[in-house]
């Protein structure tokens, strides 16, 4: 039987395209060793070091048991690594290899591409959260706040993902792939030490606190810490992240190109 090529065009339903794309990116990411290092090995290693060796008691993490202080901050780092660093690097190389162009000539659409990418990021984050929270409990993590804390953590993960994914996509849209690779890793390191991810804003020199507090990394990490240490829903941090997401998302929409 010979195949017929008689035209019968049509786009798959939006949700199926998004699902296909998310699954595709998720699988490619799992196949990529460096990305897994960034997503799991570094945050897990830090958590074990800070929460399991006594090192955390000698570093400026704040007041309280080291593991309780370390878990929310390591969760913030995990969100940053996946939604920003991994996404920026992967998207930069997609542009380099003509994948973005190929998808631009497919029925996927911009919203489908974006939603698929966010879907794959969230799927990776589910694994990261499960591993890090599991390791936290094994080290004796004792979060407070019950339902409010759970809601706060989810709110922070979603708002943080929106803000940092926008930043990653912006970077991948305006820089060359190699420059994106370098800049995304550099910014990850800078925010890790200088962006109030691992150290609370209050531990910074007075003159810097005002600036550091405005960074999305500070909002994310402090919001997560407030949720699990005090059991409050971090609305102010959510607002800060939403504003970052709005501004950066607007810039992404202005600079996005299919090639």
């Amino acid at each position, binding site marked *: *039987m*010979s*195949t*017929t*090529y*008689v*035209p*019968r*065009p*049509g*786009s*798959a*339903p939006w949700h*199926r*395209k998004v699902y*296909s*794309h998310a699954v*595709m990116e998720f*699988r*490619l990411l799992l*196949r*990529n060793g460096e990305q897994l290092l960034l997503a799991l090995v570094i945050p897990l290693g830090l958590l074990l070091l800070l929460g399991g060796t006594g090192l955390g008691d000698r570093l400026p993490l704040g007041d309280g048991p080291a593991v309780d202080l370390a878990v929310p901050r390591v969760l913030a780092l995990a969100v940053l690594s996946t939604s920003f660093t991994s996404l920026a690097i992967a998207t930069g*190389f*997609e542009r380099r*290899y*003509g*994948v973005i*162009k*190929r998808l*631009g*000539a*497919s*029925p*996927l*659409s911009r919203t489908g591409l974006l939603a698929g990418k966010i879907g794959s990021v969230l799927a990776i984050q589910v694994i990261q959260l499960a591993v890090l929270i599991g390791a936290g409990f094994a080290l004796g993590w004792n979060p407070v706040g019950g339902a409010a804390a759970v809601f706060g953590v989810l709110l922070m993960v979603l708002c943080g993902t929106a803000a940092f994914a926008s930043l990653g996509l912006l970077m991948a849209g305006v820089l060359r792939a190699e420059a994106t690779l370098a800049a995304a890793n550099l910014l990850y390191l800078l925010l890790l030490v200088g962006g109030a991810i691992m150290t609370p804003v209050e531990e910074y020199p007075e003159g810097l606190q005002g600036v550091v507090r405005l960074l999305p990394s500070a909002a994310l990490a402090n919001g997560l810490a407030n949720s699990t240490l005090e059991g409050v829903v971090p609305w102010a941090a959510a607002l800060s992240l939403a504003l970052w997401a709005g501004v950066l998302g607007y810039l992404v929409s202005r600079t996005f190109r*299919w*090639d």
Partner: protein
Amino acid sequence: MEIDNLVVRYGEKAAVDGLSLTVTGGTVTSVLGPNGAGKTTTVESCEGFRRPDSGQVRVLGLDPIADHDKLMPRIGVMLQEGGAWSGVRALEMLRYVASLHVHPLDLPALIERLDLGTCGRTPYRRLSGGQKQRLSLAMAIVGRPEIVFLDEPTTGLDPHGRREIWQLIRDLRDDGVTVVLTTHAMDEAEQLSDQVHVVSAGKVIASGTPDVLTEHGAKSLEDVYLALTARESK
């Protein structure tokens, strides 16, 4: 498909400079021209990648940029190079593209036809040039498009591979698919095309059926092309 007085500039330089051409449905149309003549830019304007500085492009009655989401499911595009993740397996990529369409071609038959079975689990970066070309062509037609744009579809293929692709292009046309191809292979254009357009310095300098352009076979298309483009380049 209609292109009317298209101008596309990169900075100061006009890559396409007042180009007009019409493609009739259900035909094979070749766009020939020297490197840098504006072939790829013209095709990319039809695919929505280039914004015209002036003039108009209509594909299936749609504007490739403003009606992007409506047009894309209806066309198939074979890029000149790249277009896949370096770590993706050949058939994984094809299945993914197929899943974006509502009535994709029967995959086993397509895989067999384009001889992709043996390299199905090979990561894209390790495919040979010919395998990449055949995968790229498969991705262009898997969604059962009305128009396919093929940018140098047989570059890097061995003679058997070329003949198979030629036959596939004929089969597409016979089933009612409109084919627009750019090529440097004059025999390819002569064998396949219903209509040929020669582009030079961003303009169409000659159009016609291969039969008319070669004066009913009195000259070869290559000689006609060389004469046309030599005169133009002075």
